[in-house]
């Protein structure tokens, strides 16, 4: 029975998306956490759900994981749904939740052995320990692990069942930079091995580095979707110039008004916006545009109090779409 099911899904694997969501809605009391959301995840891709805290990422992923039931809409994993195939699905997906604390007094190996026992098929304990790079901590108690090691253990518990679909909810939140990079290496290794991964994050750099495609979420909806490169291209320039000006050189000088039209007339400058007296230009030809920007400001009799440039990121995509910064939330 089960064998047959697996065989069927293998034959049609190409046609059936790993995850399909249509018109998903979910409310808690009177808060609409997810409000009409849809996307598809293909097999073998790493898909990122991106957005500020409270955008509805965790609600969405928990509906996908079968931990929450949707109010409306379709959710299909590997062509199956939770209502009819929950036992089958539990066997075929792997889940890492936000902030699970495994018992401190168990060892890494005991914890993995426990989770392995829940799955009919899966990888060996040795392999899961190797994949999570916890060989040296095999006999160590969970209570003594670092934050990064605990997170890798959580990842290993999601991998022991050799899942066709892997969910990672905010896998690097709260980790120090080194532990984050370590975890990224791990996810990249899983991607190379061809696993389908769905992850949520509010770190744009994480999504840019790990994800083949992302959906940017805000207020329970998807506001943009595509590969990180495609989305960044929608900002209109590869680089972002940020500066602040004043009418005099005095330190306490008030920010001065600026003629926006003459700035966007500069060749290479795609757009101009102001937030909190900080001007942002998206720019295509940075090397020719910057001298022209300097000249224009000088001509308007303005003095620079701040000036910097960076390559456009998904962060800038979010700012352009919502007018808000991600970290403001």
């Amino acid at each position, binding site marked *: 029975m089960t064998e047959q099911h697996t065989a069927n899904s293998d034959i049609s694997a190409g046609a059936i998306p790993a995850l399909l969501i249509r018109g998903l809605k979910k409310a808690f009391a009177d808060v609409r956490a997810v409000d009409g959301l849809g996307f598809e995840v293909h097999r073998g891709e790493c898909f990122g759900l991106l957005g500020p805290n409270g955008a509805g990422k965790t609600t969405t992923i928990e509906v996908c994981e079968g931990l929450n039931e949707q109010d409306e809409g379709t959710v299909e994993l590997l062509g199956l749904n939770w209502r009819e195939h929950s036992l089958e699905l539990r066997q075929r997906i792997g889940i890492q939740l936000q902030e699970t*604390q495994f018992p401190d007094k168990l060892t890494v190996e005991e914890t993995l052995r426990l989770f392995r026992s*829940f799955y009919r098929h899966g990888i060996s304990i040795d392999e899961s320990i190797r994949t999570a790079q916890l060989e040296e901590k095999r006999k160590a108690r969970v209570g003594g692990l670092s934050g990064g090691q605990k997170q890798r253990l959580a990842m290993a518990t999601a991998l022991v069942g050799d899942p066709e679909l892997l969910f990672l909810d905010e896998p690097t939140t709260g980790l120090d930079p080194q532990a984050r990079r370590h975890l990224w290496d791990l996810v990249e290794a899983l991607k190379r091995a061809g696993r389908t991964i769905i992850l949520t994050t509010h770190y744009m750099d994480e999504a840019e580095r790990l994800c083949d495609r992302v959906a940017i979420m805000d207020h329970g909806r998807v506001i943009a979707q595509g590969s990180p490169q495609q989305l960044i291209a929608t900002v209109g320039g590869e680089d972002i110039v940020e500066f602040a000006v004043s009418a005099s050189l005095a330190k306490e000088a008030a920010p001065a008004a600026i003629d926006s039209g003459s700035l966007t007339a500069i060749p290479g400058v795609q757009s101009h916006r102001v937030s909190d007296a900080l001007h942002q230009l998206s720019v295509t030809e940075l090397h020719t545009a910057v001298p022209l920007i300097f000249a224009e400001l000088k001509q308007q009799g303005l003095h620079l109090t701040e000036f910097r440039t960076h390559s456009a990121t998904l962060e800038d995509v979010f700012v352009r779409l919502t007018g808000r910064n991600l970290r403001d939330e």
Partner: protein
Amino acid sequence: MNNNSSAGVRSLQLSSLYQLTRIRFLLVLREPEAVFWIFVFPILLAVGLGIAFRNRPADVLPVAATTPPLTQALAADKGLAASQMDEAAGRHSLATGKILLLAVQQPGGVEYVFDDTNPDARTARMIADRAVQAAAGQRDAVHAQNLPVHETGSRYIDFVVPGLLGMNLMGSAMWGLGFAIVEARQKKLLKRMVASPMPRWQYLASFLLSRLAMLVIEVVFFLGFAAIVFGVPFRGPLWQLAVICVLTSMVFSALGLLVASRAKTMEAVSGLMNLVMLPMWILSGVFFSASRFPSVIQPFVRALPLTAANDALRANMLQGVGIQHLMAPLGILIFWFVVPFAVSLRIFRWR
């Protein structure tokens, strides 16, 4: 053959129920506090109570009299230690508890001054009167002889050991389940477990199974100690005692499950647990017989699971009553297992 057994070991390793039970067991043993409360504490309590309430040889009761002949008459009885003092000094000694009875020589006879609400003083009154009457020439109408026996089974320690066993079965099951489940819920471990293919019933069953494994150690350890050190009797069949222990433990596991089924914090579950256990510590005849409570509340006291458990344990151990005559307490226990378990399965919060 070899192949078979290694495949057996492997499937045991893979069996999720086995793994869950094993891990529950390990987690209890790795918690030093739990080991203390489950194994050491009841023994300390039994030792303390055994010392405090040991049966001493019959005390010699201190009394006094106001005249030398009367003092001599009292001193003739081995059960009394008599001294002579005047009435004022005697009343003072009486008031400060140095003597239990003062015999005052009056013109028309003897007057006994004593506190008639104190059992020892009443005893002193009886012995003193007998001594005085004997000194005056009274003879027993019937010849009587004493033959003292000190029967095990009738001492306080014999009474209290089954009570402590019942209390311990209640405490370890309720704390064990209640805290472990709420902690797992609080740490989002429960949510992680149900996100895996683990069958939910196995998670709950693993608590009961590990409790059974713990029970064997716990009960054998405690009763073994009581038998060797205090010579507490085991008059009923041991397998029936085991049945009562298992049933009792399952009852309180179910109650622990119920108490923990929705609580989200340790504080909440501690409060609930005390609310459930405190009345039983007092009412259910752990340290003294539950029949001492007024008859108005007896139906309530009798319906408590710990009362039923203690009654059944005492009947088995002290009186050797067969299980077929214990249907009333066992029925109460079965009720307290089935109802809380069914309710908690229904209302259990997995996240």
